[in-house]
């Protein structure tokens, strides 16, 4: 594109239309707005389901396998929480932020950072810490889309659960403080809690 062309494009954008009526411009504008916005949303939703998540073998062969043994996959009432239910915020702004962050995951997919089970295992603690930190920061927002402590009937809970929930909420704790590793295998936890893993100080 020559300099002359650029200038005329800019001039055309700045100048009010002399050829098209206000009505035409409005109709075309609104229609293209709907198509573009709808297309954007459709594309975003297409990347926001389990099938898309496990189209990467890194997800399918590691975390997805582990998740299939947990209560969020298979349970009495048949309610299932899929990948995005826990890992992508529902609210629009937070969702967009998370989607932009996910571009980093594309980079590491290309680099093959965790493309073998061994590499994944070596990174597991670091990856888990990222998720724990972000859940802690948002007060376990994605958990609370379904599990709201104000809707909990403590009398239906077990004795230990009831005591711990009441105490935990009083102390301002959030879900992830206690409920780690409920949907995926935990990393080697010696660094997190040496008393709950095999081994001794190095």
């Amino acid at each position: 594109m020559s300099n002359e062309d650029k200038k005329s494009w800019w001039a055309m954008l700045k100048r009010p239309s002399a050829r098209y009526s206000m009505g035409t411009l409005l109709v075309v504008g609104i229609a293209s707005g709907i198509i573009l916005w709808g297309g954007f949303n459709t594309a975003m939703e297409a990347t926001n389901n389990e099938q898309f998540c496990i189209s990467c073998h890194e997800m399918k062969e590691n975390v997805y396998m582990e998740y299939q043994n947990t209560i969020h996959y298979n349970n009495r009432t048949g309610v299932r929480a899929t990948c995005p239910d826990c890992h992508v915020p529902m609210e629009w702004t937070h969702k967009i932020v998370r989607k932009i962050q996910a571009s980093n995951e594309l980079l590491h997919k290309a680099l093959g950072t965790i493309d073998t089970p061994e590499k994944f295992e070596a990174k597991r603690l670091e990856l888990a810490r990222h998720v724990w930190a972000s859940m802690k920061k948002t007060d376990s927002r994605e958990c609370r889309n379904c599990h709201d402590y104000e809707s909990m009937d403590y009398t239906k809970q077990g004795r230990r659960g009831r005591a711990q929930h009441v105490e935990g909420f009083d102390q301002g704790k959030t879900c992830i403080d206690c409920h780690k590793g409920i949907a995926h295998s935990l990393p080697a936890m010696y660094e997190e809690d040496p008393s709950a893993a095999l081994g001794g100080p190095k």
Partner: protein
Amino acid sequence: MKRSMVLGGVLLLGVFGSTSLMAADKVVSLRGDQDISEASQSAELKHWQDRDPIPRDYVQQPPLIPHTNEGYVINLKFNKCLTCHSWANYKQAKATKISQTHFSDREGNDLANVSARRYFCTQCHVPQAEAKPLVENTFAPLPAVSGR
């Protein structure tokens, strides 16, 4: 016709009579014989899965697990039981702490953490379920141990 009317009248009388008799008794609510302004003692909710520690039946018996342990992972990387029962965590969790015997190897040397031979809790400690014994037996707990 006449007889049935008389019968009906007698029945009705009977019903009224019994209700007035009942009204004469003291009304006892489901909370027991308690004044309305008194705070009632609520019963402890019963859950089969979560109970107080179960008394031991014989010497050297590994204590039974008085709660469900479904989904509690024990592997080389992590031990779910110890997140409550380890010496570092039992106070916060208000749980029983593991015995000191779990910290020594088979030569009797004390270790800095739980010994590998005592790490896999469910090899010895098991939860209980409400199940009828399949075979009749005459086992009786030792009175000196169980207090029963």
